């Protein structure tokens, strides 16, 4: 007989949590004007996706999804670095971190 491992909650619970986190992140991206908080909301959405991937990886017993989570973390780190340096540059030029500032870039 196969050994079973209790992981506490059911699949739909974890799906619900990750969808809720993703929606919260999306709402944050749409509402907040502060560029730093906007980048943080993107990180929140990426983490929601990671949680979903790990959940399915556990429930179907396949480790490859966790490799994808690893790569998502790598890309998120690179993205945060570039985003923050663009933010610093924009702040230096306009003394503001309002995302509306980029409206001036109509070229």
């Amino acid at each position: 007989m196969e050994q079973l491992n209790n992981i506490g909650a059911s699949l739909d619970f974890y799906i619900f949590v990750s969808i809720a986190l993703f929606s919260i992140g999306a709402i944050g991206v749409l509402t907040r004007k502060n560029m730093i908080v906007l980048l943080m909301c993107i990180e929140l959405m990426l983490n929601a996706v990671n949680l979903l991937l790990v959940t399915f990886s556990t429930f179907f017993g396949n480790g490859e999804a966790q490799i994808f989570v690893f790569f998502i973390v790598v890309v998120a780190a690179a993205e945060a670095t570039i985003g923050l340096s663009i933010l610093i540059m924009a702040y230096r030029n306009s003394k503001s971190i309002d995302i509306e500032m980029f409206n001036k870039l109509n070229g």
Partner: protein
Amino acid sequence: MSLQMISVILGSLTIASGLMVVLSKHPIRSVIYLVITFFFISAMYILMNAQFLAIVNMIVYAGAIMVLFLFVLMLLNLNKEMEPETTRMSLFTAVIAGGTLFLVMITALRDTFQYGKGYVQVPVQDAGLVEQLGKLLFSKYLVPFEISSILFIAAMVGAVLLAKREKQIID
């Protein structure tokens, strides 16, 4: 205290701290709440037996990326007057759009819910341990792994070039 109770408490705390990231007015509070959210997500990974990713999540996200955010926040030296205002109209539309997104995704994934009726036991597997992930990463996914290092170098060079103070030579 059963495992089911622990996971329900963890899930609700994760959602609550995620909400606080969006709701709190001060950016530094947002950063702290985001770090808390990442710790809760790491705890969920441990619950799901993905130990390697739990540690990576804590070190890379809560340790490195969030410290970067905090550094930039401290560097910019923002005060309260500089916090951009959110209009009531955009808040309203964003909440409607986000709620619709939530409902659509829940409906789309409804069919998967039949697998997870009630209390769940999964087969014992060591997919999330370092040994298994290392074997996968260095055999099947070796090329993407090497390419990600190129991505890191590009990001590093790009960040240095972007944030470097330009010389004022334009008169």
